[in-house]
């Protein structure tokens, strides 16, 4: 099912369609019974979801039935006991949290650093040969930096237009320095940035095409760029993770429901060490047999004034060839090109 049509249905369910989009959805439904079938399935899930959650809430809100065998609580004459009860409760909660955390971490495969290191080496070796790849980027959450102040932002940057949204962007990568990042603006027009390994470039929907011999000039919007963790060079990024993050590997079955009928996957979780820069957490899903990385999730990643949580899902490993990464492949020949 086309993701654009799924999005239309999602907007319809959430009552966010415009009249034009409603017409588009109606046309799509009239095209094929398959579309109608998919729509009805989606509605069944949506409707049942509401019933389940309401039912769950009803169950949770039912008052507890007092046990008959339980003697009534004797009146406590000591005032300090009741005064300290919240503190005891807090301490108990902390202890429970601590025990829970220990159990959580014990659930990981190979709690030792060496086991995690072995997995990282497997990933580095396996992905060294994966030169060409295409990722779909999905932004799960956007938050502003806590306490971030704009007064130190230079005047020219303060009036800068907002960055094109990263959600639904597509990232093509080849080698360690070729990329094309395609983002879609809210008006539906594309904003492309890229690098052919020699020149970096940016193509706005209007205005001149900008190029630079500084390869970092237009790669700043790549996820993880601010801390040199762009995953263009997977080996380098993994080495950085090894140094600045605590690495653990989740057992296969814990994540298996997300990949029906697919090869078993493992999840490597890297938690940022204190004071180290970068996303709070990096999760890498990979095929346990081959080590091929399928998905990278960056949690609370610094991105300008915001902190993003985003997913990069491997779509394809097709090699589009070196010429695809030249800016001339992505705009009309008569566009003005400015070198900076």
């Amino acid at each position, binding site marked *: 099912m086309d993701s654009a049509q*799924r*999005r239309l249905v*999602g*907007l*319809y*369910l*959430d*009552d*966010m*369609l415009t*009249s034009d989009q*409603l017409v588009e959805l*109606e046309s799509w*439904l*009239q095209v094929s*019974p398959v579309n*109608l*079938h998919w*729509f*009805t*399935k*989606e*509605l*069944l*899930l*949506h*409707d*049942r*979801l*509401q*019933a*389940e*959650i*309401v039912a*769950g*809430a009803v169950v949770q809100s039912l008052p507890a039935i007092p046990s008959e065998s339980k003697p009534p609580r004797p009146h406590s004459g000591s005032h300090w006991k009741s005064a300290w009860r919240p503190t005891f409760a807090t301490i108990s909660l902390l202890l429970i949290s601590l025990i829970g955390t220990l159990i959580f971490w014990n659930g990981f495969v190979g709690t030792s650093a060496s086991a995690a290191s072995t997995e990282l080496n497997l990933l580095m070796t396996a992905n060294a040969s994966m030169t060409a790849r295409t990722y779909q980027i*999905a*932004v*799960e*959450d*956007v*938050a*502003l930096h806590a306490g971030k102040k704009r007064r130190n932002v230079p005047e020219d940057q303060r009036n800068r237009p907002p960055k094109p949204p990263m*959600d639904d962007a597509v990232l093509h990568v080849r080698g360690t320095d070729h990329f094309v990042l395609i983002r879609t603006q809210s008006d539906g027009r594309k904003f492309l940035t890229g690098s052919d390994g020699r020149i970096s470039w940016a193509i706005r929907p209007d205005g001149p095409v900008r190029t630079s011999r500084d390869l970092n000039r237009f790669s700043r919007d790549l996820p993880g760029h601010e801390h040199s963790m762009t995953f263009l060079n997977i080996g380098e990024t993994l080495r950085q993770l090894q140094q600045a993050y605590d690495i653990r590997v989740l057992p296969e079955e814990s994540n*298996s*429901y*997300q*990949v*029906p*009928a697919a090869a078993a996957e493992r999840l490597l979780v890297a938690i940022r060490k204190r004071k180290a820069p970068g996303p709070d957490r990096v999760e890498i899903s990979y095929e346990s047999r081959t080590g091929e990385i399928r998905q990278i999730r960056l949690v609370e990643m610094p991105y300008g004034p915001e902190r993003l949580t985003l997913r990069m899902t491997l779509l394809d490993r097709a090699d589009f060839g070196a010429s695809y990464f030249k800016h001339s492949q992505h705009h009309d020949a008569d566009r003005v090109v400015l070198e900076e």
Partner: protein
Amino acid sequence: MSNKNQDYHTVSALKNPENAQICVFVIRIPVMIRRGRLILRELPPTGASIVDENTRKILRQWTLAQPVVSAFITSIVRDFSERDDILQEVAIAVLEHTDRYNESRPFLPWAIGIAQNHVRQFLRRRRSDRLVFGDGVQDLVAAAFQTMATHDPEALDHLRECLRHLDSREQLMCELRYGQNLKPAVMAERLGMAANTVSKALQRIRDQLRACIQHKSVMKTGH
């Protein structure tokens, strides 16, 4: 009639007393109607019969068909409170018109037909500034729901379990959207996010749940 309360009704209030096929005994019993589900809260003493066999069959059929009828109504009106109101009316209409149901034909299309009439009446009463499908598409959607199996093997039986796999933020979003019936614009204000981001997150949650349900169904059936 409020759909929020568990009201007590009599069987006689639900059915036409002149219809001897349905109303065998008029005995006051507590009946709960919630979201179109009819639940007999207390059974009569052994030997006494409250409803005849035909009504029992209809109730059984309605219980199976109700999730699909509910989804059909949601597909047109979208708002869960409005869906609940219509579903109640449909449940009562189904019981009132059992004499018009031809047992040799499938029950679901008949119930969806009744629901379709009630949805149309509702839309006529409602303000017209909200976007709804045109009549032609409504008919197509109704027809698509009429052909659904009342118990789909792909079924959402695993939904509850899959909901537990969601992380706490996703569960919160589900609670706001589905438990509290908030639209993404309102959720966005509470969560400090853009409405579009909320809507996309909800879409992802549904995708994730669907994948989980399918996987669990495959694991259960082996294919």
